[in-house]
């Protein structure tokens, strides 16, 4: 603790959270519950019973879908018993052959968008199969097929509740705000305490993270329904239920489906992160490979998960943008042709798998499922590549590394750490007052005080220093690239497309290539941060410049400005508020990546969250640390949003 730091007055908070959780789980409100196995009543605390019930439901759902995709017995056993399966051998249901899943994906993609997406879907599935990633991919997919619909239902329900009732909205709002900047790591620990380890806990955590954006987009969509449409519904004699489900939700369809897209993306991100608490699938393989420093294997798993993510992203977006077709006077065949094709695919797939069982005598039926380690593997190739890069460029990379750490990072870090907490507080509150008056100043003051009084003030400074460095570099790159690409319509569209694809990658995937190049150093983390955070910086620069009205553009041209003058005098000032929102996103992205970077080994808040995972009293620590990170994000969020609102009002572009 240096001079001017605050005493860790909030040191009791993590311990209190732990004690409360323990009390809730083990002592509060014991009740009698019927136990199926022992056929008797048993006394158990209510919360424990509830979490166990949720756990068993989640586990059942995941197993059910996994059985369909991969084959197995557990679902049938769940409906019947082991004895039943023992005496009826036909009940040993095999999973779907990979050919059928691939054909199904292609047909669905065709229905949603057309030939292009269908081809992509088919290729992705074939790739996964041939490269021997089928089983973990299907495990991940089954996890997402449970987590995404559940998140959707809860998000939609809460969104509707918030739309109908102002009080619900007010109660939800602070939670939504904190959840937007809360690192996903931090939710892991409390969920671990409540729900234990495994796929079911992963689903629940995913829901906690994925529901807030769904709520926000549902609210946004319902709010955007024109009031006259609502009145038309009322005048048609709708009661409240009909108004909601026949008028409001169908009209808000597009925003709600964008919410579905968001949910799916969060699910993928969490599919990797929740491997920390024992979720099976690609994420688990990815973490394992990274832990063993087997970059080749990690790359393969990462590529697979990214491909599936891109596929589902494109499919859900196609669904959102698809206009409803009218089926009034189509023939039976035309109406059901995709279902018929799928039926044919199932038939052919089964026959092929059956024929395959005669052809492949070595025990692996490649037409049914390519086993995990029997596919083509490129891991060796990549590993050799990494070795080659290291051998060849070691001197240069090392030199760059040393230079960056000694000349830039160390001094910056020292500067941050030397700053007394009181001085930082005054600085932040002053900025709040200048930008948004007393109200803003009080909000930021509260947020900063929480961090200052927690036992991790200096770690928070390390997090901030890494994030700041990342944000500065990202903004310079994003701003330059965005401005350059904006000069030409095609390059701008191309750049936005690239941003879309990069944003689809689960955040963890970014760690693979940087570890490949820079090994396990702070530099790796920072480069991952920069790459990840450059996406929103670039996107918002282009979008901001695009949002400048054409009329002003024309007016400037007619005043005889040259391209550079137009950029500096007209476009930048008007695009500035939108670009500041981009800065906000850049900060959030950077913080997320800094925290995830703990996996490589940093010394900031993220590292402590990671440690809390294996600590038996980690729940309180993890949650408090998570709140600290969320608050860092919220401080900037509050300042930037207030500034943007003022600026927009000033420019008259609301």
């Amino acid at each position, binding site marked *: 603790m240096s001079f001017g730091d605050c005493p860790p007055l909030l040191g009791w908070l993590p311990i209190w959270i732990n004690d409360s959780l323990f009390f809730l789980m083990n002592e509060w409100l014991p009740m009698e519950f019927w136990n199926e196995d022992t056929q008797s009543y048993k006394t158990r605390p209510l919360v424990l019973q509830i979490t166990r019930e949720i756990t068993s439901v989640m586990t059942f759902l995941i197993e059910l879908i996994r059985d369909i995709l991969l084959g197995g017995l557990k679902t049938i056993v769940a409906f019947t018993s082991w004895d039943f399966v023992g005496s009826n051998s036909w009940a040993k249901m095999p999973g779907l052959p990979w050919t059928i899943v691939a054909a199904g994906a292609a047909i669905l993609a065709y229905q949603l968008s057309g030939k292009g997406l269908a081809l992509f879907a088919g290729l992705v599935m074939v790739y996964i199969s041939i490269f021997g990633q089928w089983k973990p991919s299907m495990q991940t997919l089954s996890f997402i097929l449970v987590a995404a619909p559940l998140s959707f239902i809860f998000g939609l329900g809460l969104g509707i509740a918030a739309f109908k009732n102002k009080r619900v909205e007010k109660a939800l709002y602070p939670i939504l705000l904190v959840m937007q900047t809360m690192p996903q790591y931090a939710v892991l620990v409390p969920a671990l305490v409540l729900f234990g380890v495994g796929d079911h806990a992963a689903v629940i955590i995913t829901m906690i993270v994925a529901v807030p954006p769904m709520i926000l987009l549902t609210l946004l969509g319902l709010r955007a329904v024109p009031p006259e*449409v609502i009145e038309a519904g009322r005048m048609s*004699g709708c009661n409240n239920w009909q108004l909601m489900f026949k008028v409001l939700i169908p009209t808000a*369809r597009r925003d709600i489906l964008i919410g579905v897209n968001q949910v799916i993306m969060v699910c993928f991100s969490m599919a990797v992160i929740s491997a920390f608490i024992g979720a099976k699938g690609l994420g688990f393989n990815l973490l394992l490979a990274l832990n063993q420093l087997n970059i080749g294997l990690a790359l393969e798993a990462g590529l697979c998960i990214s491909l599936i993510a891109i596929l589902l992203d494109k499919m859900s977006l196609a669904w959102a943008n698809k206009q409803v077709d009218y089926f009034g006077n189509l023939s039976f065949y035309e109406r059901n042709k995709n279902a018929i094709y799928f039926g044919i695919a199932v038939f052919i797939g089964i026959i092929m798998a059956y024929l395959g069982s005669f052809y492949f005598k070595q025990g692996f039926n490649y037409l049914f499922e390519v086993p995990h380690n029997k596919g083509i593997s490129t891991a060796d190739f990549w590993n050799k590549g990494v070795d080659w890069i290291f051998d060849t460029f070691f001197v240069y990379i090392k030199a760059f590394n040393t230079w960056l750490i000694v000349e830039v990072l160390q001094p910056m870090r020292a500067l941050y750490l030397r700053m007394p907490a009181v001085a930082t507080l005054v600085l932040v509150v002053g900025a709040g007052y200048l930008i948004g008056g007393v109200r803003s100043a009080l909000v930021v003051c509260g947020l900063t005080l929480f961090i200052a009084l927690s036992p991790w003030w200096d770690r928070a400074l390390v997090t901030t220093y890494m994030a700041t460095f990342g944000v500065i570099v990202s903004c310079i790159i994003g701003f330059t690239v965005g401005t350059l690409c904006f000069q030409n319509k095609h390059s701008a569209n191309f750049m936005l497309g690239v941003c879309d694809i990069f944003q689809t990658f689960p955040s963890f995937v970014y760690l693979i290539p940087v570890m490949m190049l820079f090994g396990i150093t702070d530099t790796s983390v920072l480069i991952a941060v920069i790459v990840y955070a450059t996406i929103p910086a670039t996107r918002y620069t282009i979008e901001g410049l695009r949002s400048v009205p054409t009329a002003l553009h024309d007016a400037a041209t007619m005043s005889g400005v040259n391209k550079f003058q137009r950029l500096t005098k007209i476009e930048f000032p008007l695009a500035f508020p939108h670009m500041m929102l981009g800065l906000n996103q850049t900060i959030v992205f950077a913080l997320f990546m800094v925290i995830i970077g703990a996996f490589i080994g940093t010394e900031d808040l993220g590292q402590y969250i990671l440690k809390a995972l294996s600590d038996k009293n980690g729940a309180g620590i993890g949650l408090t640390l998570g709140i600290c990170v969320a608050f860092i994000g919220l401080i900037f969020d509050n300042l930037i949003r207030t500034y943007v609102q003022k600026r927009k009002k000033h420019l008259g572009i609301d």
Partner: protein
Amino acid sequence: MSNSVIKCENVFKIFGAKAKKMLQDSNGNVDAKTFQENGCIVGVNNASFEVAKGEMLVVMGLSGSGKSTLLRCISRLTDATSGKIYIEGQDLLKLNNKELIDLRRNKMGMVFQSFALLPHKTVVENIAFPLQIKGIEIEDSISKAMDMVKLVGLEGRENYFPRELSGGQQQRVGIARSLAVEPDIWFLDEPFSALDPLIRKEMQDEFLRLQEKLQKTIMFITHDFDEALKLADRIAIMKDGIIEQLDTPANIVLNPSTEYVRKFTEEVPREKVLLIEDVMDKSDIKDLSELKVFKDETIENVAEKILSQDKAVAVIDGNNKIVGSINPTKIINTVFGGRKNSN
């Protein structure tokens, strides 16, 4: 009870947290300015009127005059702050939610300025929507909706989506939807304001043709004085929530009751609006010329003939009976007299 279908008595609509209390304190004398200083906005200020069966009342006013608010009070899309509204003798404000839904499902239809069609339903599905909401079988509702499609002249486009139609066509769908349940009362909230002038004229003619056939009780909102003159049986002119004048088009043009109303009438081509009946002399039927004109003709149509006569001209009704007379000078006075800029 008279044959009035809609009856309003001292209807007030005031927006704001303290609206109810302030209205009580004011004893019915509402001054928009003092209310505004206290954070209340006056939407409708003491409106009382009746609309008879089969009558078309056009409410005309500029934006912010409270005309749409008045309509929404009567359709109870918003609750009036005070006053009484009767629909066919039923006290509208006393209906519970279920009764209100029943009333809307069977008695009321409404057309909106922005069309307010459901984007995910086709033309015919949009029109069938109120029927399906009522619980009518899908097939019956679709066949009924197809009749409506024909009524508004959209045959062949029934399977289009609203996004594939022009503005005029979309509003035809809106009109068809509002008529699908065969309501007695028809509300139209600036139905043609979002359309191009040419399409607007076409839709107005179409609308008059429909009304001739259907004889609904209508409240029609517009900000276009010419449209009001063209369509209305009676016009209510609103300003700042107050009905300034409620009268027949002819009386409004000839005898504007306030300065505000007079400003609207100034530019009106009277020969196009006024009928012979409106300006004829009922008492003096002696000493007439040979020429006879029907009382339902507009001045424009017969002015040339009348002006060629020296003496007064006989005005006859449909049964060829003389009901009055009109002097050529009266025509000149009516068309050119009494204007502000006519020295």
